[in-house]
């Protein structure tokens, strides 16, 4: 354990702070799937130029091209979080597709897509889940058959966030129907403007359509748009699922929420008493603070492990499960603090930003379910982490 940052890091932190002071007026609000406008594209460009976004992406692909330095990444994340400024653009293309292409894409694919993706010029959606294939993702049925130089795709995807604003989709399709389920899948890059693709918004419990269903009818995709080989899509996708679970487990998000809650408690009064002076609420706050601290130290541990190229094992396996639940518990606490006002969900004179917490509280439930349900996470933790066996397959239906 050595948490001392050398002088190099001190001055690096100062540099970040100065940058934020001078430029934060340009920052967007970090909105969820809305296509970036011109200002936001400018901001992203500025962040990349200064090394605060796409930091370790090689410069030949439009990134900043810095050496991986966990402490610097950490400093950037901390300072952005401290000033409540969203880190550069975060979307599935940047956090999931780009790392996958860097690892498994052809030169051609890297050159075509990485730069445009990190700049925000090309927006991606993810086509994994299907109505019949959720936790059992590998059972997916969307079919791709070869016809000349193309694949022809038929089927349906669901839970596709941002499909309505996306240019491209990275998608799992079944190309080898006769192979075992994990070995019959391929990973394709699909232009969303291709004829035969229909996007229908999927209204959720939040009252918004954060997700979509996407229907494919005889959609033609050039054979060159495959990442990895035919039948290797499952392994390609697993490379990105790891990245998604990392993205859903960003500890700075919890720290930012905690900070907002403390601000709320210091401002809001009920019966003339500030919420922060109520010992019962304070006890809940302290419980949550300990969890936030634990997860943020856990992430420091992961950073060090990844820097040393060590497998952090259990410390890594638990991140998605814990962080999503922690975030929702934070939102739930904020609602309780607001009491009746916490139920407001729409424009009102009495609103104290409570609609925001209600939305988070509901949307987080979606995140607990999505990206590998909490139950699937527990299977992974017990199997990969604790060495417990897989649940045996039930006997075929009809057999007794």
């Amino acid at each position, binding site marked *: *354990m050595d*948490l001392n940052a050398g002088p190099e890091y001190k001055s690096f932190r100062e540099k970040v702070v100065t940058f934020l002071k001078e430029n934060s007026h340009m920052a967007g609000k970090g909105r969820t799937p809305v296509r970036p406008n011109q200002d936001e594209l400018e901001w992203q460009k500025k962040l990349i130029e200064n090394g605060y976004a796409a930091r370790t992406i090689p410069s030949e692909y439009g990134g900043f091209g810095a050496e991986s330095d966990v402490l610097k990444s950490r400093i950037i994340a901390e300072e952005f979080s401290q000033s409540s400024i969203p880190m550069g653009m975060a979307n599935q293309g940047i956090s999931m597709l780009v790392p996958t292409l860097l690892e498994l894409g052809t030169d051609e694919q890297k050159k075509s897509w990485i730069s445009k993706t990190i700049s925000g010029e090309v927006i991606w959606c993810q086509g994994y889940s299907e109505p019949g294939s959720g936790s059992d993702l590998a059972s997916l049925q969307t079919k791709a058959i070869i016809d000349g130089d193309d694949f022809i795709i038929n089927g349906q995807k669901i839970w596709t966030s941002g499909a309505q604003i996306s240019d491209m989709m990275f998608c799992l399709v079944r190309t080898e129907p006769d192979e075992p389920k994990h070995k019959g899948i391929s990973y394709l890059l699909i232009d969303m403007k291709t004829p035969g693709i229909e996007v229908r918004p999927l209204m959720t419990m939040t009252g918004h359509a954060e997700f979509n269903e996407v229907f494919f009818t005889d959609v033609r995709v050039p054979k060159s748009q495959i990442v990895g080989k035919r039948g290797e899509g499952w392994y390609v996708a697993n490379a990105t699922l790891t990245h998604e679970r990392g993205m859903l487990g960003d500890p700075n998000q919890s720290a930012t929420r905690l900070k907002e809650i403390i601000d709320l408690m210091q401002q809001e009064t009920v019966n003339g008493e500030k919420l922060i002076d109520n010992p019962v609420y304070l006890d809940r706050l302290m*419980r949550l603070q300990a969890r936030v601290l634990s997860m943020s*130290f856990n992430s420091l541990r992961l950073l060090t492990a990844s820097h040393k190229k060590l497998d952090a094992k*259990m410390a890594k396996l638990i991140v998605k499960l814990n962080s999503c639940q922690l975030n929702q518990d934070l939102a739930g606490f904020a609602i309780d603090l607001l009491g009746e006002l916490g139920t407001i969900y729409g424009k009102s004179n009495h609103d104290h930003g409570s609609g925001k917490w209600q939305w988070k509280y509901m949307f987080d439930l979606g995140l607990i379910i999505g990206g590998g349900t909490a139950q699937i996470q527990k299977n992974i*933790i017990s199997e990969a982490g604790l060495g417990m066996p897989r649940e045996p397959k039930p006997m075929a239906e009809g057999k007794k």
Partner: protein
Amino acid sequence: MEFALSEEQEILSESVRKMLEDNIDIDLLRNHSKGDDVIRGNIRQLVVEMGLPGILIPEEFGGSGLGVLEAALIAEEFGRYAVPTPWIGNSVMAPIALLYEKGNSLSEKWLPLIASGEITACVSLTEAVGKRSNAGLSSKDSKVTGTAIFGLDGELNPRIIITVLEDNLILIDTEKPGVTISEIPTIDSTRPVVEVVFDSVDFEIIPGGKDAIQKTIGVGRVLLAADILGASANMISNAVEYSLERKQFNRVIGSFQAVKHMCAEMAADLEPCKSLLWYAAYAQDNIREEAALLSCHVKAHLSEVGQDTARTSTQVFGGMGFTDLLGMHYWFKRIGLSRQILGGPEKVRQEAARLQGFLS
């Protein structure tokens, strides 16, 4: 920056674990719980031979001069094996108290004796954490009278008692007349706690005032948390191991998701505690402004996680967990004691809030 244990720290952990693995088992805990003095002496001997009582004591006083993190790693192993021998009071809190102000005559006199294992020190700070109406000390004519309760590490005829009188830590030499030590029966037989009655006894003030009290309590809390971490980890690994042997419905019970998910939840709750503990222990020596807050958080959080782990892992064993045969209850009870010593979770969280200026 490196958020990981160093190679030396890993080696220290492993060597302590190996020594305990070779020497401590359920039968020993069982015999110890019957008050077997030979066993107490033998385990103490092992710990002294490894030089562990001097871990925090500077080399000039015969110790190895290591830090709170190293002491916490040892505490974690002691928790894992439910080691029934003085540790947190004698080898950690007493040296921390005596070292708070450098160059005092008390440390020169007593630290070499603690380091060499010639004496043990018992520490009771209950008075500074939660005053009780039928305990507490007062002084008259430079002599102390009263009762100090929940003294840690007082089971081996301690030569010195460190406790609290008003705003100071004081030290009492038990060879002076008027000191009576008796064990308080608690759930946890692996760590006897004592009551010390003083009847007009000579005492000396340990320099450092309130700050020394707070620092000693803070480090004590980190160490108790470390003990809970080790004890909980042991309960989980034993539960998992048992679930892979025990069969029902022609399957090992560890293949049922109901059981797997209990184990996964315990592991998911416990794993981040390790990082919290490392940070909190490191802060005691290196990040002064965060030390007290982190000691509160790590103590409260591990108390909660430890309690859940103790309950859930016992359930994984089913009826066997409830019996005395497997002996898992020694850890269940050890966690139960650690939770309350030096402040239960609510008390400690209140302090965490106050330290951040939230409670006036």
